[in-house]
C-alpha cells in the first residue's frame, strides 16, 4: 500500500469509525459471543459454564421449542404471501388514475405510524368474541361469532389477518416500483390485445418482480422474528397456539434467565433466517426479471 493509499484509508476509517465501533460492539462481538454462549449455561452475570452440545440436545427434546418453531413457520407461511398479495393489489389500484389518490394512499399508510403496543391493545378489543366489532360486522352476513383470540384454532389466523393492517410500507415501495414501469410496455400489451389480467401477469408482475423479491425477503425476516404483537395480544396462548419463536426465546432469556439455552435458540434462528434468505434468492433467480 502506498503512502497516499494509507492516508486515504486512515481518513476513510476515521469517517466510518462511529459505525465501525458500533459494528464491533453490537454485531461482531455479539455474534461470536452468542456462538460461545450457546455451548454454555449461565444466568446473566455469572461466568458461563461450558456444557458442550447440551443445550442443543435439550432443545431437540423440548416440545415448546418445536411448537414455537412450528407456530413461527405457520405465521410466516400465512402472513408473508398474504401481505405481499394485498400490498401489490392495493398498490396496483393506487397506481391507476383515480380521484383522491393521495388521500387513499395515506389511509393505507397510516396504521404503520401507530405504536405497536397501542395497535395490539386496540385489536384485542376489535377481535372480542361477543360484541367485538369484527364479529358484529361478520354477523351482518349471518356469520356466527368466531372466538378469535380465545380459541387455539383461530388465534393464529387472527394474528395473520392483523398483519395485513401493517402493509403500508410495502404498498408505498410497490407504488414506487410500479411508477418505474415504462408506459410503452403497457401500450404494446394493449396493441397486442391483452386484457387487464393478462397485462398484469405478463407485464406488471415481471417488471416489479425485483420489488416483490425485496418485500418478500424483508417480510420473511420480519415474520420470523415476530414478538411484540403475539406477546401483548395472546402471550403465546391459548394453549401455546401463538407461542412463536420470539416469545419462547424471550421466556428462556428474560424470564428464566437461561442465557446459554436462549443463545442456542438465537443461533438456530439465525441459521433458519439465513437459510430462508438464501433459498428465496436462489428460487427468485428463475422468476425475477432484472432490466
Amino acid at each position, binding site marked *: 500500500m502506498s503512502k497516499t*493509499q494509507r492516508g*486515504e*484509508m486512515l*481518513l476513510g*476509517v*476515521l*469517517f*466510518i*469509525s*462511529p*459505525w465501525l465501533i*458500533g*459494528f464491533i*460492539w*453490537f454485531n461482531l462481538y*455479539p*455474534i461470536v*459471543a*452468542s456462538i460461545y*454462549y450457546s455451548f454454555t449455561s449461565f444466568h*446473566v452475570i455469572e461466568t458461563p459454564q461450558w456444557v458442550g452440545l447440551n443445550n442443543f440436545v435439550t432443545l431437540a427434546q423440548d416440545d415448546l421449542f418445536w411448537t414455537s418453531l412450528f407456530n413461527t413457520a405457520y405465521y410466516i407461511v400465512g402472513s408473508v404471501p398474504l401481505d405481499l398479495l394485498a400490498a401489490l393489489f392495493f398498490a396496483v*389500484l393506487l397506481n*391507476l388514475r*383515480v380521484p383522491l389518490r393521495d388521500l387513499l394512499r395515506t*389511509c*393505507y*399508510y*397510516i*396504521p404503520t*405510524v401507530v*405504536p*405497536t*403496543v*397501542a395497535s395490539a*391493545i*386496540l*385489536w384485542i*378489543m*376489535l377481535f372480542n368474541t361477543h*360484541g*367485538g*366489532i369484527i364479529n358484529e360486522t361478520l354477523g351482518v352476513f349471518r356469520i356466527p361469532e368466531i372466538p378469535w383470540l380465545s380459541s387455539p384454532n383461530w388465534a393464529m389466523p387472527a394474528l395473520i389477518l392483523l398483519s395485513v393492517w401493517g402493509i403500508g*410500507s410495502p404498498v*408505498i*415501495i410497490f*407504488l414506487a416500483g410500479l411508477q418505474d414501469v415504462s408506459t410503452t410496455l403497457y401500450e404494446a400489451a394493449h396493441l397486442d390485445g391483452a386484457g387487464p389480467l393478462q397485462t398484469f401477469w405478463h407485464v406488471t408482475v415481471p417488471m416489479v418482480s425485483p420489488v416483490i423479491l425485496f418485500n418478500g425477503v424483508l*417480510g420473511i*425476516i420480519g415474520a*420470523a*422474528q415476530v414478538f411484540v404483537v403475539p406477546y*401483548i395480544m395472546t402471550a403465546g396462548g391459548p394453549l401455546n397456539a401463538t407461542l412463536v419463536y420470539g416469545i419462547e*426465546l424471550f421466556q428462556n*432469556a428474560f424470564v428464566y434467565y437461561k*442465557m446459554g439455552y*436462549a*443463545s442456542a435458540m*438465537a443461533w438456530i*434462528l*439465525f441459521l433458519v433466517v439465513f437459510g430462508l*434468505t438464501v433459498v428465496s434468492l436462489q428460487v427468485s433467480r428463475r422468476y425475477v426479471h432484472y432490466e
Partner: protein
Amino acid sequence: MAELVQAPGIVVVRQRQKAVARTAAIGGRVLALVVLVAGAVAFVFPLLWMLSTSLKDLSEVFTVPPIWIPHALHFDNYPRSLTYFPFPLYLRNTLIVVMPSVIGTVVSSALPAYGFSRLRWPGRDVVFTVLLATLLIPTWTTLIPVYVLFARMHWTGTFLPLIVPNFFGSAFYIFLLRQFFLRQPQELIDAARIDGSSHLGVFARIILPLSKPALAVVVLFSFMDGWKDFFGPLIYLDNQDLYTLSIGLYSFQSQHTTDWTALMAASLMVLSPMIVLFFLTQRTFVEGITFTGLRG
C-alpha cells in the same frame, strides 16, 4: 396509413371498438375506486373506533348491535386514564430517551455515510457490503450478548442501553444518507477541495446543507422509532418511574385489561403525536420510504 384506404364501415367498427374499450377503462377505474375506498375505510376504521370507544361509557363498548357514536361524550375517560397512566411522566421519560437518540443517530450515521460515498479508500466497497449484510441479522441473535454486556456494566435499569447504541451509526440510515450524498455534484466538492477545504469542511459546509431533505427523513424516522420502541424498554427498564410511553401503556393494559374506555383514551394519547407528526411531514415520509425502498 392503411386505414385511409379501408372501407368506411371498418372505420366505424374501429371507432365503436375504441368507444367500448374506453367505457371498459372508465368502468374499470370506477370499480378500482370502489375497492380502494372500501379498503381505505377498513384500514382507517380501527383508529376511528379507538376514538369512539375512548368517549364511550364502559357499558357501551361491547353492545349488540354496536354503538357507533356514544350517546353522551365521556371526555372524563381521559382524566380517568391519567390516574392509572401518568402520561406527563412517561412523556418526559420518552423524550429523555428519544431526543439524544435522534441526535446520536443523525451524527453517527451522516459521518460514515460520507466516508462510504465521498471518500475513496481501499476496501471501502467490501466494508459497505458488510454493513448491508448486518441489516439481515436477526435482532435476537445479537440481543443476549449485548444484554449481558449492559448488565455487567450495570446499565440495565437505566436509560443508557436505550440511548448509547444510537451514537454508533445505524446501517439503515447510513445506507439512506449514502444514497443521497452520492447524488450531490462532485464539482462542488472538487472546487472546495481546491480552495483548501478539508473533507470535514466539505462534509459540514457543502454536503450537509445540501442534504437537508435526507437528514429530515432520518430525524423523523428515528424519532418515531424511539417513540414506538417497546422491546428495548421491556428488557432494560424495570422501574415504573423510568417507563416510556409504550411500556407504560403495556403496563396499564396488563393491570386494567377490561377498562376499554380508559385504555383507548391512553392509547390515543400515545398515538396522536405520531399521527399529527405524520400529517405534518407526509411528503418527507413517502420520499424516505421510496428513496431507500427499505422500511419494514
